[in-house]
């Protein structure tokens, strides 16, 4: 029976690769979340500004 070959131990590089993948995907999703939150806040502010009655300038 021929001897079975043992695979080399390269698990650390696999963990590095998967770690980087999850980090980059997480950063992309996080960027989308933050951008959405900021836009919603800006929209809210602008709507409040829009609904405020116009203040007449002082005509002295």
């Amino acid at each position: 029976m021929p001897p079975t070959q043992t695979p080399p131990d390269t698990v650390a590089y696999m963990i590095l690769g998967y770690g980087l993948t999850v980090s980059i995907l997480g950063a992309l999703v996080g960027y989308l979340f933050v951008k959405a939150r900021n836009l919603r806040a800006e929209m809210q502010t602008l709507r409040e500004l829009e609904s405020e009655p116009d203040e007449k300038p002082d005509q002295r």
Partner: protein
Amino acid sequence: MQGFIQDTVQTATYDRTRTAILNVLTGVTLLGFAAVLYLALFYANTDVNQGDVQRLFYVHVGSFTGGATAFFVTVIAGLAYLITRKEKWDRLAVSSVEVGLPLMTICLVTGMAWARPIWNTWWTADPRLNSMAVMWLMYAAYLTLRNAMENPERRMRFAAVYGILAFVSVFYTFIVIRIRTDTLHPVVIGPSPVESAAEGAFEVRADSRTGFTMGMASVWWMVAALTLLWHRVRLENFAHRVETLRARVLGTEA
């Protein structure tokens, strides 16, 4: 007035339908992520010559597929903009680059992590690696140059043409390992050129588990790219609405 109300109701229904579809797609993508991770880490057999690091190929090939899909959308959107001159196509184009670039970054870094134990180096001057780096820089430049242009018409026209031309780098990166023999990079799917200098090759059809996992991973990355793109383009459309409202409010105040 009645027509306006009908239009508004129809638009709202359409938006609700699209949101529901996107929510389902997002759920499927998240479940798919867990499934593909399981397949890659536990289901697929360990490569006898490379060990566990070979499992990075399921991400490496898949992320390239997803990134190339996003960049292909850039081409479609660019052509559609040049034909119709409608701003929505420009928003789709920039969104697809913003999604494609991180996916290609994943392809790059997983390739480097794989190369270190297999080639004994993180990076080397190789036709495939160089073309990949050039492609990455071209799309990074797309975003930088776009932001540097103030005239909107000019910016959208430039981005459309650039986005179409830049896809040549994606195509070249895909075929370079199939036409050149002096590259270290193995061809994973399809035949390698005769007398190829590739190192670290493995047979994707060696067993059914490797082939199945590679297929599932590639499909997942494509679906993930399209899901992310859909979210991103909705955000871009929302930003456009905020911009319009800002102009109106500032115009009122002025």
